[in-house]
C-alpha cells in the first residue's frame, strides 16, 4: 500500500485549497485511482483547486517537496493518462469549470479546463457557433482532458482534432510558473509553437488551467445516412472510394456485426445485425440541396461497392438515436465479456482495407473476440479485445494480439494512437512507432521542462525492456 500523505503536507495543501478540498479518506483515494481503462493505482492524496493561483501554489509545494502530481479532469480517458502511478497526488481540476467568454466577433471561446465538452458545444450552438471536436465521451469528458490527450471524435474527418481548435493555453509549469501561449489571432508564428507542445502532452509538462478555442459557424443542415454490407472489406473499400471521389462527409463511422449486436442488446436502434458491417455517415452544409446531393452520391458509391442497403435517417430524432448508439459503443461491448482492451490505431486510408483484414486475422489466430469499430473515414480504428482478466491463459493471448495489432498498424504506415493518447497502455510500443531519435527528443523536452520528473510520472515514456516488458495490469485478486 502507498503511504498516505504526511499530515504536515496535507495541512499545507489545505491552506491552499481549504480543508474540504483535500481528500485523504481511503474511500476517496480509491475513487481517484482509475480512469476508463483497467488500471488501478491509489493516489496518496486528492487535491481540488478552484483557480489558477491555487494550482500554481500546489505546484510550488510539489516542487519544494518533490511530490508527484497527476492532473485529472473527468477521468474518462482510455489510455491510463490520468491514473496516478506510484502514489502520485491527483490534482483534480473539475472545480475550474466556467465558460469565461464566448467571443462571437472573433469566433473563440475561452474556457476553464473543467468545462464538460458537451456543455461547451451546447453553449456555443445557442449562439449559432460550432465547436467540432466530439469525442464519444463528450458528455463525460472535459476540455482540459480533451486538450491534454488531444481528443478526436467522429467529426475529425472533415474538421480535425482538438489541437486544430486550440488557439491559446494557460499552463502552470511544474515549478508553479504560469505560462500563456497563443491568443485570439488566427495567425501566430511568434516563436516555437508551445500550444502544440502542451496539447497532447498528457499532463507530463504541466497543468492546463485555461483554454482558448477556435469556433466555426454552425452548419445549417446535418443529415445522417447508413449503408449495410455483407463483407466488412467492402465497407472499408467504400470509405476509400467516397473520399477518392472528392466528397468529404462530416463523419464516416464503421461498426462491425459484433459491435452492432452489443448495441442492440443495450437499446434497440434497429441496426442491421445480420450484416457484417455498417457505415454511418454524417454530411453537413449550409445548403440542403448540396447535402442531399452528397448523400445521393455516397449511396451510389456504396451500392457500386457491394452495399446490401442504404438509408437516410428520416428525421432529427432518428439521426440522434443513431449517433447516441455510436457514442455508446465502447461501454456497450462489456455486455459480451467482462473486460475489454480498447485499441486506438490509425492508418492512412489507403491501408484501411488491409488493416481491417489484419484485425480479423489476428482475432482468428489468437482465438479472441475483437469487435472492430471506429472513425473509418479518418483511418482511426478501435479494435477492442474482449476478455476475462481472471483467465491467465486468455490474457496471454490478449497480450499477443495487442502487440500484433500495433505492429500491423505501424507496418502499414499508421500509428499507435489516433485520439486516446499513449498514457500507460501503449508506452512500451513508443519506440516501435516513432523510433529512438524522436523518442530521445521527447525525453529531452520532458527533462527540460520538468527536470524533477514530478508531472504525471510513468506516462508516455517506456519503462526499460521495450515491447518485451509490455504487461497488462493483472486481474483483481478475489478470495
Amino acid at each position: 500500500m502507498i503511504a498516505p500523505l504526511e499530515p504536515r503536507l496535507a495541512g499545507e495543501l489545505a491552506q491552499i485549497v481549504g480543508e474540504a478540498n483535500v481528500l485523504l479518506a481511503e474511500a476517496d483515494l480509491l475513487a481517484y485511482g482509475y480512469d476508463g481503462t483497467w488500471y488501478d493505482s491509489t493516489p496518496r492524496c486528492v487535491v481540488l483547486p478552484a483557480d489558477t493561483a491555487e494550482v500554481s501554489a500546489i505546484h510550488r509545494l510539489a516542487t519544494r517537496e518533490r511530490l508527484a502530481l497527476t492532473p485529472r479532469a473527468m477521468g474518462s480517458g482510455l489510455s491510463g493518462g490520468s491514473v496516478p502511478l506510484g502514489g502520485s497526488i491527483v490534482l483534480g481540476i473539475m472545480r475550474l469549470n466556467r465558460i469565461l467568454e464566448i467571443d462571437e466577433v472573433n469566433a473563440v471561446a475561452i474556457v476553464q479546463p473543467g468545462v464538460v465538452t458537451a456543455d461547451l458545444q451546447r453553449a456555443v450552438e445557442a449562439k449559432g457557433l460550432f465547436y467540432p471536436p466530439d469525442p464519444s465521451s463528450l458528455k463525460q469528458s472535459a476540455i482540459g482532458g480533451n486538450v491534454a490527450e488531444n481528443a478526436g471524435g467522429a467529426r475529425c474527418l472533415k474538421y480535425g482534432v482538438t489541437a486544430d481548435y486550440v488557439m491559446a493555453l494557460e499552463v502552470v509549469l511544474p515549478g508553479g510558473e504560469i505560462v500563456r501561449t497563443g491568443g485570439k489571432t488566427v495567425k501566430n508564428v511568434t516563436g516555437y509553437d508551445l500550444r502544440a507542445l502542451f496539447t497532447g502532452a498528457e499532463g507530463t509538462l504541466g497543468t492546463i488551467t485555461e483554454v482558448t478555442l477556435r469556433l466555426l459557424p454552425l452548419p445549417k443542415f446535418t443529415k445522417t445516412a447508413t449503408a449495410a454490407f455483407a463483407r466488412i472489406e467492402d465497407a472499408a473499400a467504400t470509405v476509400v472510394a467516397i473520399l477518392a471521389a472528392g466528397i468529404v462527409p462530416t463523419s464516416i463511422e464503421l461498426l462491425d456485426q459484433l459491435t452492432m449486436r452489443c448495441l442492440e442488446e443495450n437499446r434497440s436502434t434497429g441496426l442491421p445485425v445480420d450484416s457484417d458491417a455498417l457505415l454511418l455517415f454524417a454530411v453537413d452544409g449550409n445548403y440542403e440541396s448540396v447535402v442531399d446531393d452528397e448523400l445521393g452520391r455516397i449511396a451510389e458509391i456504396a451500392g457500386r461497392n457491394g452495399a446490401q442497403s442504404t438509408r437516410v435517417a428520416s428525421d432529427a430524432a432518428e439521426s440522434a438515436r443513431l449517433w447516441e448508439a455510436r457514442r455508446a459503443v465502447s461501454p456497450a461491448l462489456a455486455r459480451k465479456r467482462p473486460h475489454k482492451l480498447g485499441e486506438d490505431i490509425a492508418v492512412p486510408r489507403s491501408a484501411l482495407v488491409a488493416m481491417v483484414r489484419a484485425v480479423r486475422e489476428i482475432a482468428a489466430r489468437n482465438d479472441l473476440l475483437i469487435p472492430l469499430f471506429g472513425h473509418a473515414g479518418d483511418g482511426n480504428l478501435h479494435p477492442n479485445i474482449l476478455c476475462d482478466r481472471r483467465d491467465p491463459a486468455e490474457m496471454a493471448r490478449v497480450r499477443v494480439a495487442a502487440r500484433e495489432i500495433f505492429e500491423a498498424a505501424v507496418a502499414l504506415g499508421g500509428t499507435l494512437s489516433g485520439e486516446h493518447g499513449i498514457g500507460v497502455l501503449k508506452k512500451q510500443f513508443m519506440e516501435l512507432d516513432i523510433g529512438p531519435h524522436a523518442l530521445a527528443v521527447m525525453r529531452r523536452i520532458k527533462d527540460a521542462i520538468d527536470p524533477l520528473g514530478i508531472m504525471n510520472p510513468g506516462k508516455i515514456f517506456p519503462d526499460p525492456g521495450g515491447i518485451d516488458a509490455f504487461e497488462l495490469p493483472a486481474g483483481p485478486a478475489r478470495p
Partner: protein
Amino acid sequence: MNEAHASGFSGPDVPPAAVYDQCVRCGLCLPACPTYLETLVETSSPRGRIALIKAVDEGRLDLTSPGFVHQMSECLDCRACEAVCPSGVAYGQLLEPARTQIERATENTQPPGRAFGRAVALGTLFSHLWTMRVVARLLRFYQRSGLQRLVRASGILRALRLARLEALAPAISTRFFVPRGQRWDAAVTPVRATAFVHAGCIMQVAFAEVDEATVRVLQRAGCDVVAPAAQGCCGAIAVHAGDMDRGRALAKRNIAAFERSGAEVYVVNAAGCGSALKEYGHLFAADPLWAERAAAFSARVRDVTEFLDEIGIAPELGVIDAVVTYQEPCHLAHAQRISAAPRRLLGLIPGLTLREMDESSLCCGSAGVYNLTQPEMSDRLGRRKIERILAVRPQIVATANPGCALQLTNGLRAGDHRIAVKHVVELLDDSYAAYKPTSRASSASAASTLG
C-alpha cells in the same frame, strides 16, 4: 497489493460481482448523477460508488469505514445512472444489498435514537398501516387545531431536533383512502379490465385525493376497480433503507392479496412503489418458494400513467387553461423507464400547455426518506429543482410520486411561489370534472386526433 483478502460482505444479500464487473468505468453515469453534479467529486458518483462496493467485496475497504457508509447513504438511489449505462450495470442491485450489509453490521452499535426511529418507522408505521393512520389523525389534529402554530412559536421543536421532520411532514388529507375491499364498477362498457388499486401508505393518508382520482379515471377508462383490504406497504422504504428481509415480508402480503383479488392488473400511482413492486421478482430471486409467484406478480404491475396510456382514456376532457411543467419521478423515468406516457396523457388535456424544464429527470432530492437522512444534499437538490421550475414560469408542476410532490410543495412554499403541484392523474380527473357537453365538438375532436 495482490494478496487475496476476505470479502467485507457476508451472509445473504451480497452485492453480486457479476453486476459490478459489468462496469467498464466509462464515466457516462457521472453527468446523470445528482450528487456528482452538486459535488463534482468522483467518490460521490455512481462509478465511484461501484468502485467502493467492489473494494469492500475484495477486502480492500472496510464495510463500516466512514467513507463507505457516507457514500452508501449519500446516494439517492434515483437510478439515473442505470438509465444511461450502456454496459447495463444494474446499480440498484448493488446499492440495496450494500446498505443491507451495513445495517446488519452496525445493528448493535447504532445510536439508540436512530435504532428506535428505524424500528418504529419500518416495524410499525409501514408494516401496519392502521398505525400510520392513527399517527396521521394525530398529525392532522396538530396541523389544523392551531397547536402547530403554538408549538412552532415555542421553539421546542428545535430543542428536540424535530424541526426538520415537523416541517417536512405532509399536510394530512381531510379523509383517508382506506382499502377495505371496495369495488367500483367501470363507468363505460365494454369493461376493459379489473384493476387492483394500490392505496399506498403515505398516499392513503396524505394524498387520498390522488387515490380517489385514480379510481375515477380508471372507471372512466372502462375498468372495474378493486381495493382489497389485505394489501399493504410495498416495502420500498425498507428495501432502500437496507432492510431487505422486512421488504420481503411486506411483499408477500401484496402478492397474496393480488392473487386472491381476481384482478388482471395491479395499478400504482406512486412511482417509488411501482418500481419496488415491479422488482419483487428480483427480491425473491434466491427463494425457490416465492420466486415464480413474485415474478408473475411483477409482470402485472403498471404505473397508472403507463396503464392509461396503454389502454387509452375516455375523451370527455374539459379545458385546463394552464402552463404545466412535468417533473419526472426518478423511479418512473429511470427505474421504470416511463417518460413519454405521462407527457402524452398531459398532452390530451385541452388548453394545457406543457412547457419542459431543464433537467426534468434530475432527482429533486426527496428520494424516500433522504430528505430526513441527508438534509444538506436534499436541500441543495431541492433548490436546484425549484430554480429550473421557476425558469419556465408554470402555473402547475405535474408529477407522479408522493415524495416528489412533497419536496416540490415544500420548496415552492418556502420561496412563497404560487405554483400548484399535482399528480398527472389528478389533472386528468380535474379535466373530466371541467368537461362541458356544450364544448363537446372541440374537445372530442382534439381527443380523437390525439388518441
